[in-house]
C-alpha cells in the first residue's frame, strides 16, 4: 500500500499581483506524494514553499494571486479544475493543514473545544454533544492534561506549544489522508519543537497519513522525512530520497545549504559557510537558472536557458534541475 500514489502535483504555476509587478512565486513545480510517505520541502524564505502548499488546497485568493497553470491530482482527480464548493469538501477532510504560527491560527474568541471539532462539524454534521466528546478525546490524544475542563478554555489560556498541539488535533480530527505542516515548529522553542515533531510523527504513523513537511530547517527534514524537495526561487531544484540528498547532493544550491549547517565537529574558529549573494527578485526573473548568480559552477548556458528537471541516470526518485547534470548539449 505504501507505494500508492495519493497526490501528484504537475507543473504548478502560481502568481501574485502586486503594485510593482507580477510575482512568480511558484514556477513549474511538480512532485509526487505516496500514501504514508513523509515529504520535506525545504528552501529559504520566499522560495515558494508555503505558496506551493496553499495552491494544492486552492487557497490562493484572487485578485491577490492566482494559480495560473498546473494540476493537483488528488487520487487522480484534479482539484484545481473543480469548483470552490467541491474543493471545500476536500479541505480539512482529506487534506488538512497545520500553520506556522499557533498564536494567530486559533480564533481568540472561540472556545478551544469548539475549534478542534470545526472540521468535523463542517464535514460530518456532527451534533453538539458528540463533538464535545470528540474534542475531549482529541485533547487527550495530543497529551493535554485535564482535557474535560480545558475544552471550555479560550486559546489565550493555552501556551504556544499547547496551541500548536491543538492545531495538530484540528488537522487530524477528521482522519485526513494528507497532512500539510507549514513550518509547524518555527514559532516554538527547541524542546517543544521536538515534542511537536514527535507528536506529528507518531500520529501520522498510527494513521498512515502522508505528510508534507514545509520547513527551512534541514535538521527537521533529516529527522522526519523519507524524501525531500529543495526549492529555490519558486522552483524545485532537487528531489531526492532523504539519505541520498544528505550524502550526495547534486545541485549546487543543495550543496551550499548543507555546507551552511553549523556543525559541532568543525573547528570552532572557522566561520560558518554561507551562500554568497541574495535570492533573486521574483518579479523580474532573468532567463536561465535563477541560482546562476550565486553558483560556483556557473557555465555559459546557465544564463541563457532554464535547466530542465531531469531524472538522474539509473534513478527513479531523484531529479535535479541543473545543467551540470545534463549529459549532452551543454552549449545550447
Amino acid at each position, binding site marked *: 500500500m505504501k507505494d500508492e500514489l495519493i497526490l501528484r502535483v504537475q507543473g504548478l504555476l502560481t502568481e501574485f499581483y502586486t503594485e510593482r509587478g507580477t510575482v512568480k512565486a511558484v514556477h513549474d513545480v511538480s512532485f509526487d506524494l505516496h500514501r504514508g510517505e513523509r515529504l520535506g520541502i525545504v528552501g529559504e524564505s520566499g522560495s515558494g514553499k508555503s505558496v506551493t502548499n496553499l495552491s494544492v*488546497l486552492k*487557497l490562493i485568493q484572487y*485578485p491577490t494571486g492566482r494559480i495560473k497553470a498546473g494540476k493537483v491530482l488528488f487520487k487522480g482527480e484534479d482539484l484545481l479544475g473543480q469548483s*470552490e464548493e467541491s474543493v*471545500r*469538501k*476536500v*479541505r*480539512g*477532510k482529506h487534506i*488538512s*493543514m497545520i*500553520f*506556522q*504560527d499557533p498564536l*494567530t*491560527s*486559533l*480564533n*481568540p*474568541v*472561540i472556545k478551544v473545544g469548539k475549534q478542534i471539532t*470545526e*472540521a468535523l462539524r*463542517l*464535514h460530518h454534521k456532527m451534533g453538539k454533544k458528540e463533538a464535545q466528546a470528540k474534542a475531549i478525546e482529541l485533547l487527550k490524544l495530543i497529551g493535554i492534561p485535564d482535557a474535560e475542563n480545558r475544552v471550555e478554555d479560550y486559546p489565550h489560556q493555552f501556551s504556544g506549544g499547547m496551541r500548536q498541539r491543538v*492545531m495538530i488535533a*484540528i488537522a487530524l480530527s477528521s482522519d485526513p489522508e494528507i497532512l500539510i505542516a507549514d513550518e509547524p515548529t518555527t514559532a516554538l522553542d527547541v524542546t517543544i519543537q521536538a515534542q511537536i515533531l514527535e507528536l506529528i510523527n507518531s500520529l501520522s504513523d498510527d494513521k498512515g497519513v502522508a505528510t508534507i513537511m514545509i520547513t527551512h530547517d534541514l535538521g527537521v527534514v533529516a529527522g522526519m522525512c523519507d524524501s525531500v524537495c529543495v526549492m529555490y526561487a519558486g522552483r524545485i531544484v532537487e528531489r531526492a530520497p532523504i539519505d541520498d540528498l544528505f550524502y550526495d547532493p547534486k545541485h549546487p544550491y543543495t550543496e551550499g545549504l548543507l555546507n551552511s549547517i553549523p556543525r559541532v565537529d568543525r573547528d570552532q574558529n572557522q566561520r560558518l559557510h554561507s551562500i554568497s549573494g541574495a535570492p533573486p527578485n521574483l518579479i523580474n526573473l532573468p532567463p536561465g537558472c535563477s541560482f546562476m548568480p550565486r553558483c560556483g559552477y556557473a557555465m555559459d548556458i546557465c544564463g541563457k536557458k532554464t535547466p530542465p528537471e531531469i531524472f538522474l541516470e539509473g534513478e527513479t526518485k531523484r531529479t535535479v534541475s541543473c545543467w551540470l547534470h545534463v549529459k549532452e548539449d551543454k552549449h545550447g
Partner: protein
Amino acid sequence: MRRFFKNGIAVAGLLIIGLYIVTIVVSMFWLPFDPVAMNSARVLEAPSLSSGHLFGTDEFGRDILSRIMKGTSVSLLISISATAFGGVVGILMGIWAGFLGGRWDNFIMRVADVLFSFPSLLLAIFIMAVLGEHTYNVVVAIGIVYIPQFARISRGAIISLKSNEFVRAARSNGAGDSYILFRHLLPNILPPIIVQISLSLSVAILLESALSFLGLGVQPPAPSWGNMLSSARKVMMLAPWTAIYPGLAIVVLVLGFNLLGDGLRDILDPRLRNVR
C-alpha cells in the same frame, strides 16, 4: 460578567435604564390619569400631592406624569427598533463590504460617506419629509441615519481581522465565506458594536424627541417626550413644569445609555482592562 458588576458606571447606567423599563411595565397596567383625557377645570396646574397631579398638568389639563409614563414606551420602542434596524442593516453591509473588499466595498462605503456628510438630524428630517409623518417612519428615518455608522465600524473591524491566520486556517478546514464571516469574524467584532449600540440607543432618544418637537415625529394627541416639549414651548414661562419633567425624562434616560456605553467600552476594551 463579573467585570461588568465591578464597573460602577455600567451598573449605574443599567439601573437607570431598568427604572424606565419598570415604568413601561407599570404604565401598561396602571396610569395615574388618562394621558389623553383633557380637563378644562385643571389647566396648567402646578405639581402638587393633594391634587394627585405629581408633575402638574399641561395646557389642556392632561396629567404630565401619565403622559411621560405613556411616552416612555413610545420613546424606548422607537429607540430600540431604530437601532435594531440600522444596526442589522449597517452591520451586514459593513461586514460584507470589509470581507469582500473591491468594488462592493467601494460602493457601500461611498454611499455611507454621502449619508455621513449630512448632520444626522437634518438627514432624519429629510427622510421624514419624504416618508411622511408616521411613528413607524421615525424608526425608518433614525435607522437610515444609523446604517452608515454601523457599516463603517464593522467594516473597519473586519478588515483588520480578515488577514489573521485563523481565517486561513478555517478555510483550510473547509469553511466557506459566510461560515467564516459569521462564525469566526463576527464574534470578534462584537465589543465595538455593543458599545455603538448602547450609544445609538441614547442618540435615538434625542433624535426622536427632536423630530417630535419639530412636529415630524409622534403626532399629538399621542404623548411623546418630544411633542410634550413642543407644546410646552408656548406656556413654559407660565408653567415651567410642563417643560422640566419631559426634559428630565429625556436627559436621565440618555445619561443612562451613555453611562452603560462608556462602562461597556471600559469592560470590553482589552487595552483598558487592567487600568484601575
